[in-house]
């Protein structure tokens, strides 16, 4: 409908359209500068809620990775302690073989026995390894020193010192971490499981030491075989730990993929397409310029100008 043209409608239209153009221009600027198309809850409530959920999930994945790293540290410390224990046990085997040899005399055997007694103490130190202030082989009793040694006792019959009994003070509890949204994984092997339950390593070493001190070559020979059992026993635990570590690495890789996919989805929802945002911005700029120019022209031509 053709309307009677009146100045006030020109100005009203001008202001109304200028406001609209400016609003769009502002939006284009904020999208370009923030790089995001979701800047307020009301920009797109459904997408916004989705983005926030994704953001919390990504934060959670970061936390899982943190959990895994912390567990890896723990497992790594356990593994290296047990590797040392294996080395020590191997040295015990060669010492025992030397002790079993005919050429070694009673005095030699006593020296070897003292050596092995020291190794036994050293081995206990490894079993009492601390990682970040926690005893790693104490089960969940991580502030309780897991292995303590009683004083040596004098065997009056054989006239030898019997090495002090080593007893386990930790518990059999496993410590689990949350590795991803559903998987929990034990990060420790309790000391009783490693050192005591199958064969009591400290007890076996004590028997070997006593045989050496008694100069009992038959007894020494018997114990060499069981020393290899002990090495196997530790290997078993090392294997378990290795499996866990590789499982964690696997989960970590999966989480990374997960995270990448979520980040991509989040970006597609909340990030502005820069090419589009910038072309929007220049379009709105042109529109704003045109609107301002049109506004400046309002009433340039008026009958008033021709009044004499």
């Amino acid at each position, binding site marked *: 409908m053709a*309307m*009677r*043209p*009146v*100045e*006030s*409608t020109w100005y*009203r*239209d001008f202001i*109304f359209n200028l406001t609209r153009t400016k609003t769009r221009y502002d939006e284009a600027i904020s999208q370009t500068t923030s790089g995001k198309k*979701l*800047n*307020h*809850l*009301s*920009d*797109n*409530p*459904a997408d*916004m*809620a989705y983005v*926030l*959920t994704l*953001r*919390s999930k990504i*934060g*959670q994945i*970061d*936390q*899982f990775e*943190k*959990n895994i790293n*912390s*567990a890896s540290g723990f497992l790594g410390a356990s593994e290296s302690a047990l590797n040392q224990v294996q080395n020590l046990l191997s040295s015990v085997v060669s010492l025992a073989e030397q002790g079993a040899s005919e050429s070694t005399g009673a005095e030699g055997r006593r020296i070897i026995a003292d050596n092995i007694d020291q190794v036994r103490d050293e081995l206990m130190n490894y079993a009492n390894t601390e990682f*970040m*202030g*926690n005893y790693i082989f*104490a*089960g*969940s*009793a*991580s*502030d*309780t020193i897991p292995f303590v040694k009683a004083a040596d006792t004098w065997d009056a019959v054989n006239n030898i010192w019997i090495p002090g009994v080593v007893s386990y*003070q*930790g*518990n059999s*509890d496993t*410590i*689990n*971490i*949350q590795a991803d*949204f559903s998987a*929990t994984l034990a990060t*420790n092997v309790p000391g009783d499981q490693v050192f005591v339950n199958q064969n009591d390593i400290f007890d076996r070493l004590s028997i070997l030491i006593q045989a050496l001190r008694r100069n009992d070559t038959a007894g020494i020979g018997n114990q060499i075989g069981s020393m290899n059992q002990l090495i196997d026993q530790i290997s078993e635990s090392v294997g378990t730990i290795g499996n866990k570590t590789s499982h964690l690495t696997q989960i970590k890789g999966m989480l990374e993929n997960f995270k990448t996919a979520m980040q991509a989805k989040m970006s597609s929802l909340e990030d502005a397409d820069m090419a589009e945002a910038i072309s929007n911005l220049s379009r709105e700029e042109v529109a704003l310029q045109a609107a301002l120019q049109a506004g400046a022209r309002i*009433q340039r031509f*008026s*009958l*008033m100008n021709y*009044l004499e």
Partner: protein
Amino acid sequence: MNLFSALELGKNSILTQQQVFQIIGHNIANVNTEGYSRQVVDLESISSSVLGLKDGGRGVNLAGIRSIRDRFIDSQITERKQFKGYYESLSGAMAAVEALFDEANGLGLSDSLSNFFNGWSDVSNNPTDIPTRNSLVSKAQSFALATRNSYQQLTDQQEVYDSGIGTLVDGINSIANEIAVLNEKIAYAEASGNPANDLLDARERRLRDLSEKIGINFYYEQSNHSVTVEVAGRPLVSYSSVNELSVQRNQYNSNYYDLYIEQYGLPPLNITTEVVNGQMGALITARDGQTVTGAGQITAAASAGGLTTLTFSQAHGLSVGDLITINGETRSVTQLPAGNQVVTANFTTIPAVGDAWRERNGYIPEYKKQLNKLAGGLIYNLNALHQQGYGLNDAVAPLRDFFRMSTAPAGVTVTGVAGNTVTFSAGVAGTLNVGDVLTIDGETRLVSTVVGNTVTVNNAFAAAGGPNWEYANIQGAANTFEVDSAIAADSSLIAASSLPTAGVGGAVGNNDMARQIAQLMDANNVVDSDNSGSGDYGTFHEYLHALYADVGNAGSTAQYEFDANGSMLTYLENKRDSISGVSLDEETANLMQFEKSFQALGQFMAVINQLTDVLMKIT
């Protein structure tokens, strides 16, 4: 005709022309006056004074001044203004609410909640590390603080709107009085035959302002040219009398203002729930929620001991703290007995069977309720686990809360626990309500029903505990949400372990509890969204994000409607101006036209004057 009457003709006509110039000037001067209707003059020729005499006419006379207006478009603009006022204020209010939840920039509750749960994961990674525990405490405190702040800021917003209502009432009354005065003046002017053009414009302008402030109905009286204005179906202005609006604080609605209108010969009438448009409607909606009719009717109502118990014909869906309005009286729900009943403070007029009732939906009260439910869900789920755990030096489970709960009222003890029924030594209705958290000897449950001194809970108790108990009200849970003060002071009390921790071999490295609590982040059905006394809604984050979606949707809808009404109004105002507005070109053309005739009249009088001179010289 003689020369002297020709001079008289000239004089009259010049005077008339001058009046025309005045009108043109008036129009030009008002070119920018909002709502001004251009005025046009009606000229008429003056006929001969005596019928039958052949002496021609006597020039021109001003027959009248008309303003050009289209009352239909005027009315449309006035009507449209109430929606503009409503959506403008509402979108402003929602923008303020949105700003409280600044999630888009990652500074909001959602991230803080994630940090809190991740803090539990950190503790589970290193349960004996005190700095890690301290960090969890501070994460929990900052989430609790953020929740309380959000809740408090929502309340602050409500108070801003509440005081806005008081201010608006003054503005509305003063406009109503101006309209009454204008009604009177217009009636006088019209009765005395003077066109009341400018007064009519002034009244239209005030009607528009009034409509923007509070939705109105209005109609024009034929008899005296007055306009009658109604608010919520009650007369506000009729001719020269005004029934003023007033506010009174409603003790049942946080002492907020209720809106009243004067009635002739009767006490003022409460119209709070009936004003749904204009800025006033927006303020009430943002503060109290949108008024909607409740499902079903009242089937029974009884008052006793300062309380009214209402029975509904079907499930009412109300929760404690909700507002309910019957026959203009508003109360808040204080208890929720079973069987479609609610208990409120006493109704002055006891509702009758079959009465309809109204409740409020959405907006700030709803957001606060959702924050309460979120906080309530966290208190329930966290404490239920935490109560069973052990701190760093506990030989027996210390039954400690992580989030603070209220201690039982003095003298009220648990006298019996059997399955999911708990008996107390005294009535607990009002203290405990459906959806509240109840802990007896380390077992934490949600309250399902409360009748007298018997309470049922969502899950059976394992042990027959008592007599001590503690609780957390779901209503206002977000407002008092806080970490247990003992834990805040000593983070070693955080129960990360599920086994005794004291002494040699104590399971301080056990992290089962911390891990389970961290896992609550992904747990489903942790929030009791429908006030049934059992969890039914998604994860904590999902619930929070749904709240955000509500806020965002309310904001974007209000903004959209505001924009749409803006376009509509611009169109209508342009249309009005195309009819009633001043065109400078037109006025200039008129000016030129009348200048010419004015000049011609001057010449005419000069000629007559010369002719008179000629006659004078003859003598």
